């Protein structure tokens, strides 16, 4: 980004010819193939040792290396006639081609091995709805400076970006947000943090089973030094997990930095594998402010972008602010949207029927379990079966009350805003210009009380922004106001 190129500047010179990726990838591919073949390799080595032959073991190393070499030799790309073309495969040749003006995001990631070699992987996000992995346009292994130049070119050639470029002529703006080490305290409360904890607990119990520890302790075992040791072990495991989540947060989000560049909003993060995403401003359809209960209680929020052409399978590309202090994510959202309303504005309540549904949906399942437990105890099961459901009941009530408080929608400053949920509450704001259709989904229960779940479909994110359990007339009214004339022709 050192030398200013005019919008008419041609793509990086020499890119019109078919060319290979960086030869240093020859060091990366075999390693990667070996890792991928690892389970097979282990089996081969074991079988080879058993049968006493060396041939198989040699084959087990040669095949992955050869595959890596083949992959390098058969992958070529070029940028010509306003299209990026990638050709892959030996037996089944596959050419992926994308018009440069359809490029929505450019993602640069570098694994640890690639960083050592000074390489990055460049991934081009386009507007294909079903973007399965085979069709993704990925230039895996370009020199870092070359990839950055290419990224700037790809995003600048897109005609929509010119306005953004002229708007920020007065020098590089200060970053919108940067990493703050104090954010690490939110690490255990993130989705991945909770998953890590759950997985570790699951793994630990399985391990205990495998080792053959008794599942139920005798009353006699509950006294003496054995208990102290067990509790100590548990605490140690929990502390270890906590550290693990913090470490995970640091590795993915360390060095986080969000800034505005002529090409769009640029997010950089990661300590080992670095990730550098640029989102074309025109393609920023909206934002989703994540306020899950645990994070909210701890005073944190996070923010994701809803980007046209980037669906939720690529969540890594749409992260704008990692879990951080409560003020940061809303501030960034206001900056990106250019309005405060969609982030802070008041929402319209969904009425008593929707509130009732929150209560019944949270409490009825727990009651069912409770009744079943009572019946089981009545039939002679141990009394402590009741403990779980009885303890769950107040939790269900708290979650239901929180869901009722959170439910709402509004049309604010050209954005459809919807909020719902408790444990995973989200406030989503979608620019009405990015709405490409409407869905009204209602079960018999919902129809009975006049509610429907409105979905504003869009070409990115989760595919739709959902307004949960809204009275049908309100849903029709907000849909008509957001895109006048479309829904009006189908009302009674």
């Amino acid at each position, binding site marked *: 980004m050192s030398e200013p190129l005019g919008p008419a500047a041609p793509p990086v010179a020499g890119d019109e010819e078919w060319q290979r990726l960086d030869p240093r990838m020859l060091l990366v591919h075999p390693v990667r193939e070996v890792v991928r073949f690892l389970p097979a390799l282990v089996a081969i080595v074991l079988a080879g040792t058993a049968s006493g032959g060396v041939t198989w073991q040699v084959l087990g190393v040669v095949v992955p290396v050869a595959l890596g070499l083949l992959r390098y030799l058969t992958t070529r790309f070029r940028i010509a006639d306003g299209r990026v073309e990638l050709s892959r495969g030996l037996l089944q040749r596959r050419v992926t081609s994308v018009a440069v003006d359809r490029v929505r995001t450019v993602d640069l990631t570098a694994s640890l091995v690639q960083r050592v070699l000074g390489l990055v992987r460049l991934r081009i996000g386009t507007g294909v709805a079903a973007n399965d992995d085979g069709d993704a346009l990925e230039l895996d292994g370009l020199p870092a400076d070359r990839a950055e130049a290419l990224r700037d070119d790809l995003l600048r050639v897109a005609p929509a970006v010119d306005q953004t470029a002229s708007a920020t002529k007065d020098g590089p703006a200060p970053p919108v947000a940067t990493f703050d080490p104090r954010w690490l305290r939110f690490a255990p409360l993130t989705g991945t943090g909770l998953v890590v904890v759950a997985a570790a607990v699951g793994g630990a119990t399985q391990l205990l089973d495998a080792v053959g520890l008794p599942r139920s302790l005798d009353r006699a075992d509950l006294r003496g030094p054995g208990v102290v040791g067990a509790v100590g072990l548990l605490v140690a495991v929990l502390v270890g997990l906590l550290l693990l989540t913090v470490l995970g947060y640091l590795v993915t989000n360390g060095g986080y930095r969000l800034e505005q560049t002529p090409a769009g909003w640029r997010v950089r993060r990661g300590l080992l594998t670095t990730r550098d995403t640029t989102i074309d401003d025109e393609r920023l359809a909206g934002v989703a402010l994540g306020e899950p209960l645990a994070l909210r209680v701890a005073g944190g929020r996070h923010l994701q972008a809803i980007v046209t052409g980037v669906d939720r399978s690529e969540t890594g590309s749409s992260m704008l602010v990692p879990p951080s202090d409560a003020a940061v994510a809303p501030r960034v959202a206001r900056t990106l949207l250019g309005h405060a309303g969609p982030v802070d504005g008041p929402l319209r309540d969904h009425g008593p029927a929707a509130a009732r549904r929150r209560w019944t949906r949270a409490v009825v399942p727990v009651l069912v379990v409770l009744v079943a437990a009572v019946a089981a105890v009545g039939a002679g099961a141990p009394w402590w079966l009741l403990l779980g459901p009885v303890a769950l009941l107040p939790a269900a009530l708290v979650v239901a009350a929180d869901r009722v408080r959170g439910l709402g929608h509004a049309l604010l400053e050209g954005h459809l805003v919807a909020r719902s949920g408790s444990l995973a509450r989200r406030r989503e704001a979608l620019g009405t210009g990015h709405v490409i*259709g409407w869905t009204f989904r*209602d079960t018999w229960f919902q129809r009975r009380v006049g509610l429907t779940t409105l979905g504003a479909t*869009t070409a990115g994110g989760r595919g*739709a922004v959902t307004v949960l359990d809204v009275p049908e007339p309100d849903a*029709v*009214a907000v849909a008509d106001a957001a895109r006048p004339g479309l829904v009006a022709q189908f009302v009674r």
Partner: protein
Amino acid sequence: MATTGQALRDPAHRVSPRARAMWVTTAAVEGVVALVVLLGAVLAWDAVPAWTLALLLVAEVVWIAVVPQWRYRTHRWEVTDTAVYTQTGWWARERRIAPMSRIQTVDHAEGPVERLFGLASVTITTASAAGALAVPGLDREVARRLVDDLVRQADAVEGDAT
């Protein structure tokens, strides 16, 4: 606001009446398969009592009597100059509206069972992962005309549909 206090109406057209027969047939075939599986279980294990067979049979008869009819009453579609409007489902009803300008592809498909009844389904996709409109159980000719009309109308609109 023009639409304050109003609800959506149903789309104008029903699917083919033969769709009912198709749904009855598939439900009956699935029911017979389930019955055979359960019969095998009853014969193989003493723990499975024979009256479960009667229970399953009653449930299936009710299902076949109610659900295809309910489906037929729900499944509807309509195309205007500017939009497509579909309604599918039975217990959970789904109404979808897509502007003509955002249509990306129009698919015409005839599954083996559909062909047996001279039916076809039309799927209209937009750029949204959650936005495809599908109308199953259309008369084959109606489906073909629908596809032609949609392709012609969607072609007339400028833009890249995102």
